[in-house]
């Protein structure tokens, strides 16, 4: 198949939820090295609250992203609430009226997420934040959409780009957030937000690929 039914959102969203839950400890450890160690806890709290709210219900991908974004925004505060809240709500907005999620539409959703994010934070690629994961993932998707690539392949490429982007934060010096305190000493360690963003994008891609292969 070359598109996903918007109405089949539940599986994709649960894939994301479970990935965060499974990586709670890991994300905490990464944040502990140069941050305050609470990133896994913060993210897990938000995603698990969404899981509880969803319960046994079905959801469209658009509505699910909106609800997840709202929970993050309403319940975890700090910077991560609005950051991930914005990302998911922008993706929801961009897909709200669609029955089918095609590759071009998904690329637009992700672009909207990045632009929405840029509207609320100052960090850009190279600043050792989740932007370093999100930006290359968006670029990869856009290129795939423009060249009319297969959706599954495009998602796999996006996941690879996200992974590479996340890994690139290891050599960077943090300029925003708590780890920026360490300056040069923040080099040599992954960024926590970049890591969680990679976990989320890969889980989203996995969930979508499962739908596409059905």
């Amino acid at each position, binding site marked *: 198949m070359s598109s996903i039914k918007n109405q089949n959102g539940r599986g994709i969203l649960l894939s994301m939820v479970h990935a965060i839950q499974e990586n709670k400890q890991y994300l905490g450890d990464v944040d502990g090295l140069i941050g305050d160690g609470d990133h896994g806890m913060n993210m897990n709290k938000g995603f698990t609250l969404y899981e509880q709210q969803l319960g046994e219900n079905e959801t469209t991908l658009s509505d699910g992203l909106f609800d997840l974004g709202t929970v993050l925004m309403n319940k*975890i505060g700090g*910077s991560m609430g609005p950051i991930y809240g914005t990302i998911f709500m922008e993706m929801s907005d961009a897909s709200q009226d669609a029955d089918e999620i095609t590759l071009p539409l998904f690329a637009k959703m992700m672009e909207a997420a990045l632009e929405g994010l840029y509207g609320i934070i100052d960090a850009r690629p190279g600043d050792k934040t989740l932007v370093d994961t999100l930006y290359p993932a968006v670029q990869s998707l856009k290129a795939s959409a423009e060249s009319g690539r297969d959706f599954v392949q495009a998602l796999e490429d996006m996941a690879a780009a996200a992974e590479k982007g996340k890994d690139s934060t290891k050599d960077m010096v943090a300029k925003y957030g708590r780890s920026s*305190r*360490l300056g040069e000493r923040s080099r040599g360690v992954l960024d926590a937000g970049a890591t969680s963003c990679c976990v989320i994008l890969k889980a989203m891609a996995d969930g979508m690929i499962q739908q596409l292969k059905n």
Partner: protein
Amino acid sequence: MQRILNNPDNIVDEMLEGFVKCHSDIVKLVKTNDDNPRGVVAAKEAPIAGKVGIVSGGGSGHKPAFVGYVGRNMCDAVAVGEIFSSPTATAFLDAFRAANGGKGVACLYGNYSGDNMNVKMAIKMAKREGIEVKTVVANDDVCSAPKDQREKRRGVAGEIFMWKCGAAKAAKGGNLDEVIEAAQKAIDSTRSVGIGLTPCTLPAVGHPNFEIKEGTMEVGIGHHGEPGVEVCPIENAENMAKRMVDLVVNDYPFTSGDEVAVLVSGLGATPVMELYVLYNEIEKLLVAQGIKVYRSYVGNYFTSLEMMGATLSVMKLDDELKELLDMEAYSMGFKQQL
């Protein structure tokens, strides 16, 4: 960790429960919806019809900030975040609702990315409900960005002057624009600097958040341990005062003949007697430059859990700011009578 805690995840809610019980003559906890189960802390009489509402909010761990500045002629409502973490947008929205007396709300808060994002979103939501909100974003911390990038600077203890003056203006019947103007003038006239002597430990984390080596001090440290401009060997009170006064006075045209308000706040664990020793040196230095201290405040006004160290905030006064500063106020953290 030698701390007084139950489950550290619940510390903020438990603190609030205790706070509201203890200060029921001044504040109340307002819970308006399930999206913000924590509720917000509002002044007992809030909202006051016909008065501009004063709102603030921020992460916890800075006691008396922020809840301690809710009260008569001070803030009408504040949003309460986790420790060192911005409140949610919904929490800010609830604070707007709790403070709104029909004349609009002045949201006076500090320049942190989380707070900026959440306030911005809350304002959008408030607009849909017909609540007009305008903001002043405190950026008094001189060491957090160069002078030509003041918009990047963080807000620290100088926020107390912003709240005091903005709230007094509202209490005197000022409209939203006048309140915003007064609060903006207060913070634009204020410069702050901090010196950190020890780090602090978040209860849920269990180990110090960063390091300050024994025998050194961090000049320009932020309220969450954000890095300063210099780490140097610890100095005596006189030299610490000199550094602080120099950083503050040189950043803004404080000159001979000026009258100022001075706030020396501890960061949490420094004995208060030492804050008076520091204030004594600061006052001497200001007086030596011909600057007159019109009012001064010394104590733990804006803390960072159990960090040691202190901040200095100096506000240049004109007749309007003097009148606003002089007004009576009655909150847990700031009580002033004529």
